[in-house]
């Protein structure tokens, strides 16, 4: 079986389970939408949003709801110990990691498809003016965040206090990704759009993605063997 086919097999299985239960999608979406609405009440006065708030709120909603999705995605594998069945299967462990990562990225993409228009509407943020750059920032930021998160969620799957430990470990490591996402998006939302700055932050995000995914692929097998 090819490496790519294995990745797709794992992702497809995760998406099929999610399509049946809709558990992660609904909880993550509900949390993300609630966050945006609460922030909208705090930061929008008389129909005008606080300057530069939209980018931060968008990325906070993505990061927090992403943490929720990561925890649940691996909790599901823990309940029937199916992660052990995957570990004993004759598939490359990096393919297992990438399959889980792709599933989480697609799930977060579905959440972003709802909250990006919502943020745009609530904060009068022109997120679609430079749609391709916005899309690039969201894709690169989500991959970077999920790359670290997938590794940590897998590592913590047997830890008793995994729900507490996941954000404690995840946020400090992914701060560069969140900062790059916020600054890049801000550059697109300010009165005078700063395209070179947005591209610079996008390049930084791609760099973080390459570093994080490489490190995760390198460490996934040893950390999961025990």
């Amino acid at each position, binding site marked *: 079986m090819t490496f790519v086919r294995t990745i797709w097999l794992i992702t497809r299985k995760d998406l099929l389970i999610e399509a049946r239960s809709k558990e992660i999608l609904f909880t993550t979406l509900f949390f993300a939408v609630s966050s945006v609405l609460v922030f909208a009440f705090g930061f929008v006065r008389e129909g005008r949003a606080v300057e530069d708030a939209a980018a931060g709120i968008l990325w906070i909603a993505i990061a927090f709801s992403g943490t929720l999705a990561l925890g649940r995605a691996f909790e599901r594998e823990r309940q029937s110990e199916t992660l052990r069945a995957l570990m*004993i299967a004759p598939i490359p462990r990096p393919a297992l990691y990438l399959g889980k990562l792709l599933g989480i990225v697609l799930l977060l993409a579905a959440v972003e498809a709802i909250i990006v228009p919502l943020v745009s509407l609530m904060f009068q943020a022109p997120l679609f003016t430079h749609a391709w750059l916005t899309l690039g920032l969201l894709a690169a930021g989500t991959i970077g965040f999920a790359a670290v998160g997938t590794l940590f969620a897998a590592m913590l799957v047997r830890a008793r206090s995994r729900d507490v430990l996941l954000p404690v470990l995840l946020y400090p490591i992914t701060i560069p990704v969140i900062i790059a996402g916020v600054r890049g998006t801000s550059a697109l939302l300010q009165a005078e759009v700063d395209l070179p700055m947005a591209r610079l932050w996008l390049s930084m995000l791609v760099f973080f993605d390459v570093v994080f995914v490489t490190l995760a692929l390198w460490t996934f097998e040893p950390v999961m063997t025990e």
Partner: protein
Amino acid sequence: MSTPGGDLDFTTLTLTDVTRSFGRRRALNRVSLHARAGETIALLGPNGAGKSTLLSIIATLLAPTSGEVRYGPHEGLRAGAALRARLGLLGHDLYIYPELSPAENLRFFAKVYGVEDVERCIADALDHAGLSHRRDDPVSGFSRGMRQRLALERALLHAPRLALLDEPFTGLDDAATHALRQRLATLRNSGCIVLITTHDLETIEGIVDRAMVLRNGVAVELPVGAGSLRQRYRASLTPLSSSR
């Protein structure tokens, strides 16, 4: 059947002085075992004796602290995916996705193991498990016994050379127990090495070739002799009980 990662086969399993510690606690202490193709061996012992730990080590899920596990000429952790393709593990937890149907579970694992003719293989497995009529129902609605039967077929789907069965009779009714005994006989005839852990000694009487008893991480071969498996097992535990 194509073997993912290459064709690797073996006809013996050899454990030499396998020790495993968790912190200061020693779960297994210099366990040695040799099994040949077609042998069925029972791993007996009280709760917490180290049976599941031993199965996890043989399944390459845990690394021994010291000692060696060899599958024919191959060393476990180094052989990687090609070796794992020849192992079948039924754990105490069942390793099946409750949200999926039996057919979907089996299809996923059949593809993961690179099984050829997936649909025929699924039909055979469901037939063995007696679940053909429930093939498209979600597993979450199944009883423990039905899940156990499905989990066993999942573990044996790819015709492994080495089957590691942790408490395979849990939750099974009389008919399913009888079917499993027959299935184990078929495995033996096909040259599969089977290691079973169970407390259900009457059920495995006559289908295991020999038995090992694990006590406080130490393994001793259960002597062949007069009396039932249960009587011999109790006799092997007596020195420990009387010394307490």
